[in-house]
């Protein structure tokens, strides 16, 4: 009845991993990776967020519907970001499909 009870050790492990990943984020920021700095920072942040969602927020033990809810949120966020960027990133986009010429 009372939902899944995770062991304390799991929580502590997640906590420690999050701390380590924070340290890695800061460290990675000072290494010059060119454009990859941004990429690395985002990947780590996504990974941290997943840990929190999956274990602290118990998504792992929730119904498929709840998981679907989270997925929906991310999906529509992606629509917002990518379709808007379609405009901005194509301001220099000259080659047109030749059937239109």
């Amino acid at each position, binding site marked *: *009845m*009372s*939902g899944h*009870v*995770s062991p*304390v050790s799991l*929580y*502590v492990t*997640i*906590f420690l991993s*999050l*701390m380590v990943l*924070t340290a890695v*984020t*800061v460290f990675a*920021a*000072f*290494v*010059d*990776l060119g454009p990859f*700095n941004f990429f690395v*920072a*985002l990947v*780590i*942040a996504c990974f*941290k*967020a997943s840990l*929190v*969602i999956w*274990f*602290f*927020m118990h998504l792992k033990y*929730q*119904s498929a*519907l*709840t998981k679907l*809810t*989270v997925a*929906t*949120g*991310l999906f*529509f*966020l992606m629509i*917002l*970001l990518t379709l*808007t*960027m379609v405009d*901005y990133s194509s301001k220099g986009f000259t080659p047109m499909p030749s059937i239109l010429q």
Partner: protein
Amino acid sequence: MSNAVVHADSHGQAHAAHHPALQHHFDTMGQQKEAAVIGMWVFLLTEILFFGGLFMAYMLYRTWYFDAFAEASRSLDIFWGALNTAVLIASSLTMAMAVRCAQVNKRMATVNWLILTMILGAVFLGVKVIEYSDKFEHHHVPGLNYKWAAEHPSTALGAGAPAPVAGAGHAEPAAAAAPHRELSLSPEQLQLTTQIYFSLYFTMTGLHALHMIIGIGLMSVITWMAWKGKFDAEYYTPVEMSGLYWHFVDIVWIFLFPLLYLVERP
């Protein structure tokens, strides 16, 4: 379609074991709890898109004015940012512990973990106050005699020789203060575009802080309820819900930290 759903009168059945927290329009505690959980997640979904609009603006201007963002971000103190990240992650742990204690019916432990979580939340906000007042001092608040001065801590970090000079050599002092990587922005432009950075900085962190304040407010009520013994192993939904909310706020910060503090540090 299935006819497996042939509950007998589920209404009457519910009356038999009526938990005090069961609302009249639900049949079972299980149904009630599930409804709350989904409701909360749907709410968090709206929060994702709420912050999403800001991330969109951030993404665009960061691409356009990368140098300004890098410059402005260097003026933030990584120490405070990292500290706050750690504080928030710790508070997520204590929050998770609070929910766990509620699950296993440890009343006082729940209360204590909740209080600890609120303390950590308050520490976070305290650090934010320090950072904000620093911005006020440095005229880094957009709209309020905003001023972007070239001299700030990061210039000291700047290595690299000043840009090579050719042509007639009228070296101006401004050139000497050039940071370690040649910027393609003039002081006037930095003045404008760093302001965009700080506008986003304040909107993002401000809304995040507002969410924390609301979270602490929620939690004080929940703590009080927990102390009064309103929850048990069967009904602790409010603790769990405020936990979900708090973790979400933590996640937002997990993204804000690298995006705002670590634009370009090497």
